[in-house]
């Protein structure tokens, strides 16, 4: 039996302490130990982006991070995007544009797009496509996802300006 370790991190604004197997990836810890099922597993080896989360503000694939590494870190998962009952603009535009079909890739796209819009509030289509190139979607052909992200940028701009 491998040993267990205590990890403390701030997850979606909440100080959280949990027991992880030393072999757990962050993805496994989020899902199997903490029950945060919003972060999805598509490949478990960094190739699909379904498990995207923000680690100290940086976009990472949770399946490629060890749970032990996040001790002392700040994490944002898809569950932490909406605040106080309000969806963030990119969540709204995904709904309005029909940017999800099965929805399994959606949490990863939303986290990645959210990070993009924080860094580049007015991205071009090109920038959106580059930023989201690590996220696979098999249902939509990406068209409506790209549109939704560009729409969200417009909305963020209006809201903050």
């Amino acid at each position, binding site marked *: *039996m*491998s040993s267990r370790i205590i990890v403390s991190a701030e997850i979606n604004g909440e100080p959280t302490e949990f027991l992880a*197997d030393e*072999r*757990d990836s962050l993805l*496994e810890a989020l*899902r*199997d130990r903490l*029950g*945060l*099922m*919003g972060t*999805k*597993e*598509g*490949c*478990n*080896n*960094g*190739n*699909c982006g*379904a498990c995207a989360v923000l680690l100290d503000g940086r976009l990472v694939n949770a399946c490629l991070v060890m749970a032990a590494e996040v001790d002392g870190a700040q994490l944002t*998962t*898809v*569950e932490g*995007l*909406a605040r106080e009952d309000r*969806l963030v603009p990119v*969540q709204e535009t*995904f*709904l*309005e*544009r*029909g940017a*999800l*079909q*099965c*929805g*399994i*890739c*959606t*949490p990863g796209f*939303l986290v990645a797009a959210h990070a993009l819009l924080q860094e580049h509030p007015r991205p071009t*289509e090109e920038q*959106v*496509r*580059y930023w989201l*190139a*690590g996220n*696979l979607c*098999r*249902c*939509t*052909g*990406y*068209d*409506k*996802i*790209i*549109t939704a992200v560009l729409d969200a940028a417009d909305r963020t701009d209006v809201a903050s300006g």
Partner: protein
Amino acid sequence: MVAPAKKPYRVIGSRPVRPDGTDKVTGRANYGSDIRLPGMLYGRVLRSPHAHARIVRIDPSKALAHPGVKAVITQADFPAAEDVITDLGETASNLKWLVDNVLASDRALYHGHAVAAVAATDPHVAEDALGLIEVEYEPLDPVLSVHEAMAEAAPRIHPHMHTVEMLARFSPGPRSEHDIPNAASHLRLEIGDLEQGFAEAEIVIEREYETGTAHQGYIEPHNGTALWNESGELTVWLSTQGPFMMRDQLARMLKLPVSKIRVIPMEIGGGFGGKIPMYMEPMAAALSRKTGRPVKMIMQRDEVLLGTGPTSATYVRVKLGARRDGTLTAAEAYLAYEAGAYPGSPVGAGGMCMFSPYSIPHQRADCYDVIVNKPKVSAYRAPGAPAGAFAMESALDELAEQLDIDPLELRQRNAAVDGTRRIDGAAFRSIGNEAVMRAAEESPHWNSELQGENRGRGIAMGYWGNGGLESSAYATVNRDGTVGLVLGSVDIGGQRAALAMQIAETLGIDYEQVKPIVVDTDSIGYTAVTGGSRTTFASGWAVHEAGLEIRRELEARAARIWEVDAALVHYDDDGVIRGPEDRSLSFAEIAGQLHRTGGTVQGKADVMPEGTGPAFACHIVDVEVDPDTAKVEVLRYTAIQDVGTAIHPDYVEGQIQGGAVQGVGMALTEEYVYDDEGRLRNASLLDYRMPTTLDVPQIETILVEEPNPGHPYGVRGVGEVPIVPPLAAIANAIHQATGVRPRTLPASPRVLLEEMLPEA
């Protein structure tokens, strides 16, 4: 039969937010792998490292001695399976093969074939245990292509198999007089007199085409959690396109009455036909029975590629005869599709669909289902049609070039119209084929000029028949004027919305007043898979009929309230019930009075509609081919399709865009790569290259709406046909850009560059 007038709808054609949307953008929606149960164990599968091997011995003792390991199973833990043909919705199969595919019996027939499964207290322990199960294999020679498999001296993968002569698709006949090694079946489709057709031709071309093995590529891996309790009742939670189909398969494999099995469909992360067959679900069940605890199993991505899906690699030879003016006189095809380790390739659909956009008096297709040592194929979006269309539409392009006729014009001259006979002898009714071609001709894309070097434009058609089958729905009128809509159809991409919209239209109420819910197999009547482009059509019929029943019952209630003859009361399409002397009640008003007039009102419908409307599509693509690296860039893409009626245009467009991009993947990058021993070398999403955001442009869509007379709102299936034209459209574009005709797909740089380089 309903004759849908093209009337302005209130709800249909609008683009409301889907009912399950908020949960899916906040991470709250529960998919199959999100299930957690008290005392749950984690299962994993041990898979064969060999493509073909005798299994001499399986010894689980070391694994069982490992702390945390609770059980190991092999095929011996299941009841022996009889040979019975079983219907799988989009393909057919035999139970014995299905069972052997779930867990190998005495031989492993492909790399990744499951041989044993383990349950343990922790996923890491389960993984460790796999390495402790000892299996002794005696490797055998693998057979890895249809050409190898059908050769005279080929080793026979199923030694007692004899080629069966099919009477029709899905209808096996007697043993064939011409037994061909590893050919499970031969189907001949034919109309007219081929010899006469070629005699009338002034030009004949004959070409060969091949496509590689491709996977459906859903982002969510297969998963299944089972609890087989002490009273012998089995509950399974999973992501599936067909809960009832899963129940049927489990009942047959486990020899349980269906009443003992409850299948609970969770949200599903993509399927495209691949989440219909059982894989780990019976293993999870058997492990649960052995341990008395719930067992959850999730495939890793390499297991998904190794052990599920894919669609057939294919060989197609096509021969076309035409007159100088472009009129097609004859068309002949020979198709051999890989079935994988067990029979059931969609080769019949390939032969059925490839000539269907055209009126050709003399046609023949010979279709062979061929066993090879690769994973058993399963349905993949318009199963079998893309490869056939690739051959036909590429050959037509060459014919157009030789005759110096515009490729779209050649297609228009030969377009199938109402009354045209297909290769199976049936005549088309109310098809939008010509309208699609006209829309292509008038499209901004076709009329734009393509400038720049190394660029080319391609065009291709596609046809798919679409499905009907059984659907069940209940609708309950709530006191607050809303309607609870209970569905048997799993929602894989907006079906809750599309069905809620149809019953809202029928009842004349707002979309927001309908609350759809998808339920398990104990809670509704038999409903076939979400697949075959059938759900919006057939389940749409069901919700419409349930709505009509509610209308009739509410008329009766209003008559009772007003104390008038029911014949004087009428439920109008605006959702208002009107009676004599200007009396009227809105839907919300009467809903509030139901408890005083006899209680709840429900509409229920169990339907099995005929009258499916076939779908036609035309795709136009511009590419640029790098002259040094042969990398193909897709510059512009337009998909035109007859969708009947677009219930929710966003999701109709989304189906078209998603299907087109899957087709782009098949055409350019997606392919199983095997070594000489038949081991899959690219079982990851890095090396099995599906299109990313950088590989495709925005996909322009043009929706042609020729209502299907076989549906109250004119619905045709839309989901499958968009994957049919892209292969040839891209190949034709590459030809225009480079002069090279790709006849083997994917047109990877490696393949293309060889042809593009001047011979030394």
